[in-house]
């Protein structure tokens, strides 16, 4: 009899708990539309970051909108914009589908390719939809356009570092390499896409102005599978650093060949997707050793930037069975928290009010203090996580992704291959 009563009580308890749970999310969900190139690293890492944050927020009770708890719901759509040969219009159609058919309240994530993200700005403006780009979009033009035509593009935000930040960080490392090892000759290799072409051009100018000799610049079409001649040029010109701007998978061919031919120049990449993934070491059978890459923000490689960093890192690894993989992981995760914070402060989903709230954002996150420049809506970058969003440069050392920059969060220092010493 006792056990019967106990069972009834337990059943009632479970029933009430379920009922109260159902009540907690009786409110309409807030729909986050995520237009991402999901077959590519910068697409799926963003998707995973967003979903992780959404799960955490919903488990903690959801978003408080005017004293009503509302859950987030994610609608992901594949824009395919990172794939070679896919026109920008595909991404725009996908984005419009998210807004019109899926009734997305906010847009987070992409499109990932700069060209597509720039083209999407007018569409977002037309529908007055707030968008926070979190992965892939590196062109400085994005936030410049917001600053130039604020009224039109005020709905567009970017929560990760952009190409100019990345160049600054890399130049700081070049200076370090010059001082410590006497490396002064830089050869630039870039993929034929907007952000990479632009970054290569700026990098050439900045490196020259800082006393480096730019020995050559090669632009490769997306999908290039042969880098032999360019590597021989690197060797012939006596270059000591290869600055790589490529997110295409074929960059793995370049890195493997660099190792096989023992080219005496340090590969230092940005948006070097092939080398960002934790599986890179195994995939190259160790030939990834010494490769450096800028993963844009802290949290995409292990470090102790803030209290959030390893908490995020471990939660990501636990949920997805793999460590944060690409440059969009930590920023996509944080975008959801930043949006939650802004909605709660605005007390509404109304775009103009949430824009104002986002402009006033000031919170700590995975990669430091998060604030947006109120004029350009670009996240404010810094060298110290206490001051702003910090970047992260890693080097593959003995099978591990070791953060070597910035110094405030570094776990090691840059090593040179033995054939360069």
């Amino acid at each position, binding site marked *: 009899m006792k056990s019967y009563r106990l069972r009834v009580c337990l059943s009632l308890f479970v029933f009430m708990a379920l009922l109260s749970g159902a009540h907690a999310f009786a409110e309409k969900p807030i729909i986050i539309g995520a237009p991402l190139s999901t*077959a590519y690293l910068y697409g799926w890492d963003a998707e995973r970051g967003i979903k992780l944050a959404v799960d955490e927020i919903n488990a903690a009770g959801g978003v408080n909108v005017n004293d009503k708890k509302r859950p987030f719901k994610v609608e992901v759509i594949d824009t395919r914009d990172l794939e070679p040969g896919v026109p920008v219009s595909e991404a725009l159609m996908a984005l419009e589908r998210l807004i019109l058919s899926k009734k997305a309240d906010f847009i987070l994530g992409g499109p990932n390719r700069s060209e597509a993200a720039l083209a999407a700005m007018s569409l977002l403006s037309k529908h007055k939809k707030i968008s926070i780009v979190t992965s892939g979009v590196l062109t400085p033009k994005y936030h410049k356009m917001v600053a130039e035509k604020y009224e039109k593009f005020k709905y567009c935000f970017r929560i990760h570092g952009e190409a100019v930040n990345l160049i600054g960080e890399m130049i700081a490392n070049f200076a370090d390499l010059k001082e410590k090892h006497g490396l002064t000759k830089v050869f630039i290799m870039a993929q034929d896409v907007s952000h990479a072409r632009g970054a290569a051009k700026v990098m050439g100018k900045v490196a020259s102005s800082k006393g480096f000799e730019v020995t050559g610049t090669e632009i490769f079409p997306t999908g*290039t*599978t042969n880098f032999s001649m360019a590597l021989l040029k690197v060797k012939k010109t006596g270059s000591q650093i290869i600055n790589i701007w490529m997110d295409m998978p074929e960059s793995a061919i370049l890195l493997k060949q660099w190792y096989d031919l023992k080219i005496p120049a340090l590969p230092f990449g940005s948006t070097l997707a092939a080398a960002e993934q934790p599986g890179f070491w195994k*995939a190259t059978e160790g030939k990834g050793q010494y490769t450096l890459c800028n993963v844009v923000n802290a949290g995409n490689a292990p470090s102790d930037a803030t209290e959030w960093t390893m908490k995020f890192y471990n939660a990501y690894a636990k949920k997805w069975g793999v460590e944060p993989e690409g440059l969009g992981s930590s920023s996509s995760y944080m975008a959801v928290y930043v949006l939650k914070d802004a909605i709660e402060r605005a007390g509404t989903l109304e775009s103009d009010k949430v824009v104002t709230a986002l402009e006033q954002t000031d919170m700590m996150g995975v990669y430091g203090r998060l604030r947006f420049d109120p004029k350009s809506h670009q996240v404010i970058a810094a060298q110290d996580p206490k001051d702003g969003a910090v970047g992260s440069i890693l080097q593959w050392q003995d099978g591990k992704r070791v953060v070597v920059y910035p110094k405030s969060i570094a776990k090691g220092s840059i090593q040179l291959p033995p054939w360069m010493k």
Partner: protein
Amino acid sequence: MEILVYGTINSVSLALMGLGFAMVYGISRVPNFAHGALYIICGFVTWTLFQIVGLSYFVAIILSLCVNGILGMSMYRFVLIRVRGMSISEIIASYAIGLVILEGLRFGGFRGMTYTLPVFMEGSLMIGGVPVDYHRVVMTIIGVALVAGLWVFTHYTRIGLALQGMAQDERAAMMLGIDSDFMAMVAMGFGAVLAGVAAILILPLGNIVVESGYHVLIMSIAVCIVGGLGSWMGAFFAAFIIGYAQILTVVYIGSHFQMVVAILAIILTLILKPSGLFGQQKELEERV
């Protein structure tokens, strides 16, 4: 010297990509637009057998080539046989199969840049003062040996002669008792195996990604059109023309334009000599 060395390597690599496509079209007149997909699936099957199942690399390669051959023959036996002779339908059907394979792989989780195959030999050597890694050398030697082997096969074996008979005049071959559909099926299987061989030789240089399937298809079409549709020897020579043109473009114009070379070669061929360099049968048709 570096132009000579890397021009040859690049050309052999293109020839490997295009041989299977050229052979299938030459014999069965079926434009196999699933060629790129067959190339990629062989890479993934080998990777699965080697990395997941734990077979030795050699056994994994042999098994995956067998799988590719069976897949190629099945494609013909169950789908393409029904649309044979209707060129547009053949293109649509084979391309659709290719899409199903490639997008199916992507849907099945084969995405990312961490799928790789090991090289046959580690390290590098100097050829005339130019550093080259061993795998590229091995790939070039096997590629040339494969072409020589194909020539011997099609000239001195019973099946090879039957395939050649089909390629020259299908109706006459049928009158001599050659089963046209069976030989077309064998050709498809053979083409699929050649796509697989190309994958096994080329993919260890980088990684296995679905998108490469489309790239391989475009390059195969380029070498076949320039070489003359239906002539696999023509495809081999065309691969050398495009391969060297690409390397010369990189050296003297810029890496930026190397992908344009293949497309430009297609356009120029179609304007100046639509039958291609060795497309004799088509040339006769054009004259008539």
